[in-house]
């Protein structure tokens, strides 16, 4: 799954550590999500969407085969 997390974070001028603190996760978790190596759980995806005041589908884009 692709996502716009890195772009949205950059718009807020937050570092990965800043975002991690706001989401109450580790910096490695933010990094893994941004690079598309890890898909967050639904509760975490909702927390991300809430933080950026967007809908989940505006942040996370499913792969075409899904």
């Amino acid at each position: 799954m692709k996502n716009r997390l890195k772009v949205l974070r950059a718009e807020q001028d937050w570092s990965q550590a800043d975002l991690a603190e706001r989401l109450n996760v580790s910096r490695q978790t933010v990094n893994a999500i941004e690079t598309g190596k890890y898909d967050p759980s639904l509760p975490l995806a909702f927390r991300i969407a809430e933080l950026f005041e967007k809908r989940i589908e505006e942040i996370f884009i499913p792969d075409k085969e899904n």
Partner: protein
Amino acid sequence: MNKFTQRLTGKSVAIITAATWVLVYLLARWLLDNHQLQEGLRVVVALSPIVPFAFFLVLVLANIRQMDEFHRKVHLEALAIAYPLAMLLLMLLGLLELVIPLAPEDWSYRHVWQFLPLLYFIGLAFTWRRYL
């Protein structure tokens, strides 16, 4: 995270607990190898590492519970690698015992368990490589 969990997940607590476990194990080994104790006492000494290990287990669980979902996944995958590797190691040792007379002083279960944390760290290294 509550105060109790915070205390349990501190680095110093982890180091002290792990060191206590290893020390109790080494002391038990030394007593059993070098002293003629009564049979009942030998059993008590042999079982003595259970106490620090129980505390170590509580510490591990507290650490896992304070991890975020990604770290839990990483550690779960590390275990998913380490567990079959441990089975393989024990299976091969069992088979080799049938073929080669292995001296108990060189190879026995008391030697094998020490490799299990190593297998876990191998699993962890593979998993981290995949995600980072």
